[in-house]
């Protein structure tokens, strides 16, 4: 088990390195010139050149990449003389659009994304698994039809459409909630909840849909298992069978996917954050796309990748705990 974890971690680091190389090359080879973008509207060629040198974009791509990697561990310095500044380690670069170190920008926006992700995650697991279980237990009945329909629509409708519809209907037509306006939970907890409840719900309902499907099918499959029949034949109570036998089995694939989905969300819920004006990492990254803010793009991509890879490792290890067959044989 220990060896397994070490191997897994080593592989994760290699994977992250690969991701960073790809990300860096991908953006470095784009036709957009980051120096030109910092130069404003009345841009002269000599200004572009000066900025390119100032930002380090004059160097070969590989050297830039090396500087980037180095920055993560020792920080980076920019500019000269009075306008010099530095981004301390772990530095993911400096955004010339936002005039700040990428690391601190991510530090500012990440909590919002994390709050969004955690709340939505809890809600969607409850809704997804709950509705899925109801569907499985009522297979073929109207509850099942409704749940599968809900799953179908939820999986496939664009988030922005649902988000705006929910926003308009809840806030404008039915006036149940005020317009969401993000507040830090530390400053104003009730405002925080009021602002987050809609994005949580939207994200939860959309993501819950696939969990409904997974839970339903997983449970139906589990109910077919001989060991469940044996459980019944033992005289176990329905609740016990559902929890220890059926759910236990159905939850394993759900845990895997939930881990990855949650990690994906931590990388920024781009559309949800945009629709609900949440100042999170997703919205920052889309702003970076609009502004061609490459350092922020590379930074958020890397952070998102770290979450995904980490989630993979955690899921793999969790798998060992959830399924003894994996644990012992590895």
């Amino acid at each position: 088990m220990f060896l397994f974890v070490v191997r897994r971690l080593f592989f994760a680091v290699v994977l992250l390195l690969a991701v960073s190389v790809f990300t860096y090359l991908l953006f470095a080879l784009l036709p957009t010139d980051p120096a030109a973008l910092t130069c404003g509207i009345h841009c002269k060629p000599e200004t572009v050149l000066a900025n390119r040198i100032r930002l380090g974009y004059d160097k070969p791509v590989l050297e830039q990449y090396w500087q980037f990697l180095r920055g993560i561990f020792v920080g980076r310095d920019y500019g000269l003389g009075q306008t010099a500044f530095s981004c301390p380690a772990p530095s993911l670069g400096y955004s010339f659009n936002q005039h700040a170190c990428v690391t601190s920008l991510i530090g500012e926006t990440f909590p919002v994304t994390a709050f969004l992700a955690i709340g939505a995650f809890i809600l969607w697991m409850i809704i997804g698994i709950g509705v899925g279980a109801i569907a499985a237990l009522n297979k073929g009945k109207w509850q099942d039809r409704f749940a599968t329909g809900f799953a179908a629509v939820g999986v496939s409708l664009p988030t922005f459409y649902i988000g705006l519809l929910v926003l308009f209907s809840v806030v404008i037509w039915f006036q149940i909630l005020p317009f969401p306006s993000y507040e830090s939970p530390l400053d104003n907890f009730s405002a925080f909840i009021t602002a987050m409840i809609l994005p949580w719900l939207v994200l939860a309902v959309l993501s819950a849909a696939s969990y409904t499907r997974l839970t339903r099918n997983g449970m139906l499959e589990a109910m077919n298992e001989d060991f469940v029949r044996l459980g019944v034949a033992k005289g176990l109570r329905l609740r016990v069978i559902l929890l220890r036998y059926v759910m236990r089995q159905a939850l394993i694939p759900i845990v895997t996917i939930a881990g990855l989905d949650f990690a994906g969300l931590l990388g920024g819920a781009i559309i949800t954050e945009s629709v609900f004006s949440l100042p999170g990492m997703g919205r920052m990254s889309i702003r970076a796309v609009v502004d061609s803010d490459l350092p922020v793009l590379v930074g958020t991509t890397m952070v998102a990748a770290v979450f995904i890879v980490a989630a993979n490792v955690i899921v793999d290890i969790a798998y060992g705990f959830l399924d003894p067959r994996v644990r012992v044989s590895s």
Partner: protein
Amino acid sequence: MTSTIDSVRDDGTGVPVTASIVGKSPRELAWNRFRKDKFALFAVGVIAFYIFVALFAPIICSALGISPTRLDGQALNDYGLPDGPFGNISTSHLLGVEPGTGRDILARLLYGARVSLMVGFIATFLTTTIGVVLGVVAGYKRGKIDAVIGRMTDLTLAFPSFLLIIALTRPFTQRLESIGVPEGNPARLTYIVLVLSLFGWVYVARVVRGQTLSLREREFVEAARSCGAGNSHIIFKELLPNLWAPVIVIVSLSLPGYVSTEATLSFLGLGMIAPAASWGVMLGDSVKYYRADPTYLFIPGIALIVLVLAFNIVGDAVRDALDPKGDRQNLL
């Protein structure tokens, strides 16, 4: 046909599946079951209808005398909003007109269906093809090839795909244009389809690989192998025919997903370029008018929901038909 006492393995619940329907291939059986699902047949009809109207959009539009680009200022009031209730639905504009320009919504919906369905179908086709091929090869060959494909999968999954899709739209569209793809919408569409495939194949491949791993141990594959069948024979004649159930389910789920991704990209201004219509463009445009013209808000949304539901119903029905085990069981 003769039958010894244990010619068909009892499936444990005692519902004698094979006993009841004799002498038909699994495919026929599935089709028979599918045919009985009225709901699914209706959904197939809906999909066929969508494809039909998308294919014949120009003919339908000219028959109805409408156009997706023609401006109709007469249908708008002074402020550019539809000059009549319900988005100015009238005999000349059956679903009303677009605010701001007076373009016919029905015509735009029909032409939009072409774009949306095309993106959906092509992306699904590509992801499925790539995913199935790589998944089967990985699962069947195992060893080094499996490892390489597995690492590719890990790497692909490690990227925040949606962010990259957005971030790379403009630069890659330019790249495509510079290598000869016609400018504008053809290049955008090509990019969308390619990039969706680039990130989408992984999910298909993983499912297919898993299925292949278990199939390759099954008797009929071993039988084929022991008869000296080559790899390509086994993959194409033995494995693939047995993989289409899970693949169809994936297709039925992913196709509407791609349609909705196109919509999201259009909403972000990365989809179709004006004056072309797509459902995404319409959805993105219509949400602004929830107050001024709610009819417009619902039309493209309903069109999309109906399509999505139809695909899901068909997908579920196909799975049920191919996998009768769904019927047996269960105690709880």
